[in-house]
């Protein structure tokens, strides 16, 4: 890891209050992202990756709340900042783009105005100046004829164009961290590649760190330098993205990697069954004791059913949370 971390999450626990009791929707979540780094957070639906992102930008709403842990952004703890201070961070220094470019833009406002508003809101620019910057921002995300497009309403743009506009809005104020929550799930595969490429290039140019959240291990490993895999509210493995495919350490990661079809493999050719992970993700209210993956794990022993594994440092670099890791 190079330089001081931009964002540092330590032992974060997110509580879910269902009225009668509190359960931890995520716990022991720790990771750090350096300036300009690309970091991926992978996991199934409900594993806690999206709420972790919401916690970072201070937008957890009841019944969810931060139970314990520290979030440090640029050296300062931000988890207890006032609502107004957190709001100043959002959009200006930490930006986020969403899964659904269809609904993430205001339908009654021209897209140029929506970009310009960011400059007015966070940089105190005049509307005149902001409108000029909006055209530049639109040009930077390679929208053709930006000086005409700024007057378009979101419904006049295609899905890919809208996601470009979202990226332009998110990067308008030159944030230090861009959180991308499934940024391309709703797009065609060809458009997906373009958008990812665009996002990666823009962030590299400006030194913006990316926290990418997805269920698509392949996509994340492709974009990010490091990847953390989450399962049932805990990070089970964190590795360099090349290592995670070559030599996954946690049985869950192994299962994930094995379940991806590979071009030319027997499974892809239809000659053998694609491997799967037996069982289902446990419900948030009934996480098993010990290692939460133990009911589905082929290597599980008694210790896995009783004692929560600590995070171990791997010799090859990386972290894993398993009693029996290779």
């Amino acid at each position: 890891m190079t330089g001081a971390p931009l964002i540092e999450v330590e032992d974060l626990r997110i509580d879910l209050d269902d009225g009668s009791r509190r359960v931890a929707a995520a716990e022991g979540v720790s990771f750090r992202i350096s300036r300009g780094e690309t970091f991926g957070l992978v996991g199934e639906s409900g594993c806690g990756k999206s709420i972790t992102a919401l916690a970072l930008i201070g937008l957890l709403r009841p019944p969810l709340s931060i139970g314990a842990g520290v979030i440090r952004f640029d050296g300062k703890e931000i988890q207890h900042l006032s609502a107004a201070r957190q709001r100043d961070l959002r959009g200006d220094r930490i930006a986020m783009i969403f899964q659904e470019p269809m609904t993430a833009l205001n339908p009654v406002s021209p897209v140029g105005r929506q970009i310009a508003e960011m400059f007015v809101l966070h940089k105190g620019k005049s509307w005149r100046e902001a409108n000029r910057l909006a055209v530049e921002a639109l040009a930077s995300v390679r929208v053709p004829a930006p000086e005409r497009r700024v007057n378009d309403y979101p419904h006049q743009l295609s899905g890919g164009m809208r996601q470009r506009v979202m990226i332009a809005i998110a990067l308008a104020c030159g944030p230090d961290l861009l959180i991308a929550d499934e940024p391309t799930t709703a797009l065609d595969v060809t458009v997906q590649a373009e958008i990812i490429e665009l996002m990666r290039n823009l962030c590299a140019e400006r030194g913006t760190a990316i926290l990418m959240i997805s269920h698509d291990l392949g996509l994340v490993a492709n974009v990010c330098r490091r990847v953390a895999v989450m399962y049932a509210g805990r990070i089970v493995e964190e590795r360099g993205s090349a290592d995670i495919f070559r030599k996954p350490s946690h049985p869950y990661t192994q299962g994930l990697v094995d379940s991806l079809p590979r071009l030319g493999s027997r499974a892809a050719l239809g000659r053998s069954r694609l491997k799967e992970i037996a069982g289902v993700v446990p419900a948030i209210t009934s996480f098993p004791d010990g290692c939460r993956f133990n009911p589905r794990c082929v290597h599980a022993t008694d210790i896995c059913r009783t004692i929560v594994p600590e995070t171990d440092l791997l010799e090859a670099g990386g972290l894993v949370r398993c009693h029996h890791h290779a």
Partner: protein
Amino acid sequence: MKLRANLVIGGALFALAIAVGLLAPWLAHTDPVLDANLMNAEEPPSWTWWFGTDDQGRDIYSRVVYGARVSLTVGIVSQLINSVIGVALGLSAGYWGGWWDDVVNALTNLMLAIPSLIFALAIMAVLGPGLTSLLIALGLTNWSFTCRIARASALSLRNQGYVQAATVLGYGDFRIMITQLLPNMLGPIVVIGTLGMGSAVLSEAALSFLGLGVRPPFPSWGSMLSDARDQITTAPWLSVFPGLAIFLTVLGLNLLGDGLRDILDPQSRSRRT
């Protein structure tokens, strides 16, 4: 093309009513109050007296023209007050929820439970007759529908992706309400607003008819109707023309509201172009 027609006709009727009100001194043939002449009492409509004259010999045409000022002032101003109150309460209640929502809901239910005209009558009874109290009375009693609509829109809009995106991008609560929620609910609010203007014109007529509106001898359409009811069989023009003025204004406002709704929706706007 039907969509355009209601906008054009409604807009034209409303614009006509406003123009008549503004240009009353030039359009009127006589002074609506002072030019009484018992020699001309109860003349039927003719080339000299377009709409006829009343029992004091005043020109009905001139009185209808001047009456537009009162009716439109009441309609526009009181509905503006209603819209501002209704939107402010409904929007904030829907967006914030919680105890504030409960308070606003209770207040709205209270307003809906009491017939607004009765409530306005009560306020008028306290404030006394006159234009200002008319504006206050009607402005405070008809915001419940606007409030309901604003609240319902805010409830559904606050979960929209772009509202959440705005939160993530660092917008404050008020900025979200003004820039994200308000423009998206403006369509129904404007429609309700123009319909409300129409009903405010009618309420003004009703209150003036009951003698609580503008003080005689100054004309308003409602008080003219009120004065004319004794002579409705002998001199029907006394009630027909103010009634027609009310009818056309309210019709115009309703058509306008309809037409505005169609063009305020950006989706349908581009479909047409």
